[in-house]
């Protein structure tokens, strides 16, 4: 080979290498199917001037690592009542090639006070992190995600039904497992030719499958109202005579481990009585009769007190006075 042609060969090789670089560095590693090419070049002097020589190029094909992680995205145990509930998980492709995952949800976890029924697994189609019925796609069996790119994460929802037999403060867990569709097995298991770009697929350190638990905490809260009356007549007694004042007390008793929201207590005045203006109280403090300025209001027919969100284990007393008409 002439020296000129030799130079051309060097340039051609440099061009090929330039096309392959740069390779982005990602958490899951270099993409499966990448060719690693190594060439050394030597310069030397053999007495007739500087010479250059290249080694042959050695090539290594990066194989596909099958790896996955699963995490619960719920901040803690999901507060639940009998009926439909949603557990939220995230599946992340921690391998280096596009991979789809088979999902299985197991409601029978040791230590459960009760087991839920799995109604389905849905994908967060609109990506808002919240299950939207009719929008987020419910997977049909076998419940398999679309292929996730390396490092891509997917939010999925496990839809469960809490049985009517569940009682307050009971807990239950559900295990979601994601398994690489290409295959699972002991780490290092190889599926020849099954990887990206004609590479082999290799089972990663976690066996190409991972799981996480989501948990439910049943909070059943009940509200009972207890109403009592005390009469004081104009003569210092307790007779229900015209002109006597009746003080009604309504106790809102909230029991259970959860809380109730939007609790509004209303009561109508008995016929034959007249409300004593400005006599409405909540927990010993006076409320105005006007609407909108505080939690309570009174009109010609009755009272209404908005208690808002009330935690279980608390009692709130409401009082008001009426007089028996002459």
């Amino acid at each position, binding site marked *: *080979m002439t020296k000129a042609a030799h130079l051309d060969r060097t340039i051609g090789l440099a061009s090929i290498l330039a096309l392959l670089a740069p390779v982005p560095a990602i958490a899951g590693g*270099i993409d499966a199917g990448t060719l690693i090419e190594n060439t*050394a070049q030597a310069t030397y002097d053999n007495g007739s001037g500087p010479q250059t020589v290249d*080694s042959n190029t050695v090539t*290594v094909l990066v*194989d596909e690592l099958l790896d996955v992680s699963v995490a619960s995205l719920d901040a803690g145990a999901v507060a639940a009542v009998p009926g439909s509930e949603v557990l939220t998980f995230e599946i992340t492709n921690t391998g280096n090639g596009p991979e789809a995952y088979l999902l299985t949800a197991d409601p029978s976890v040791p230590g459960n006070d009760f087991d839920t029924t799995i109604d389905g697994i849905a994908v967060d189609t609109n990506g808002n992190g919240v299950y939207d019925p009719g929008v987020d796609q419910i997977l049909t069996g076998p419940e398999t995600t679309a292929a996730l790119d390396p490092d891509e994460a997917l939010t999925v929802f496990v839809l469960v039904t809490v049985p009517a037999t569940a009682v307050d403060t009971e807990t239950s867990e559900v295990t979601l497992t994601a398994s690489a569709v290409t295959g699972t097995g002991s780490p290092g298991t190889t599926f020849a030719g099954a990887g990206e770009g004609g590479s*082999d697929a290799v089972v990663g350190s976690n066996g190409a499958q991972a799981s996480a638990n989501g948990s439910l905490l049943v909070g059943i809260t009940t509200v009972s109202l207890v109403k009592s009356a005390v009469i004081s007549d104009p003569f210092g007694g307790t007779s229900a005579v015209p002109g006597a004042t009746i003080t009604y007390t309504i106790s809102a008793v909230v029991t259970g481990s959860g809380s109730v929201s939007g609790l509004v207590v209303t009561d109508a005045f008995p016929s034959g009585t007249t409300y004593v203006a400005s006599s409405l109280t909540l927990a010993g403090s006076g409320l105005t009769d006007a609407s909108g300025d505080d939690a309570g209001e009174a009109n010609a027919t009755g009272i209404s007190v908005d208690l808002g969100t009330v935690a279980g284990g608390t009692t709130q007393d409401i009082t008001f006075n009426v007089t028996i008409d002459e």
Partner: protein
Amino acid sequence: MFKIVFNTLVSIAALVGAAISVPAIAQEPLRLKGDVKAVKTVENDDGTTVTALVDPEVVVPGDRLVFSTYYSNTGSEPVENFIVTNPLPAAVKLADDADPALVVSVDGGASWGRLAELQVTGDDGATRAATAADVTHVRWTLAQIAPGAEGRLEYPAIIR
């Protein structure tokens, strides 16, 4: 026109030549031969482990490779100022436990030194000590290779 055609033919020949890894030219007194092995840890039945150099048939990110370059002076005259430069493929990084005496570059071959002597400038403009992951090239220098002498140069790398 003729010249263009001729140039094209040369380019094609060059590409084909590169793809099939032409061995060093017979007339050249110095030959270079590249090789790569994967370092695999094999567990014996008794639970002990041994590392072995194997052909890199199945490799994934995190695996260790050893790139080697064999050289031999097949001529009758000594070769002097023998410098072998090896750009690191972008998909690998120099292993952290590579020979600290190895001469490397962290700037694409513009400047050279032992890794411990080199610094890099980050995106924020601050300089920091270079790490093995910053290395772009490795280089070996031999003052003289006698006729008939041969040897091997190698560096360990981790697939990114």
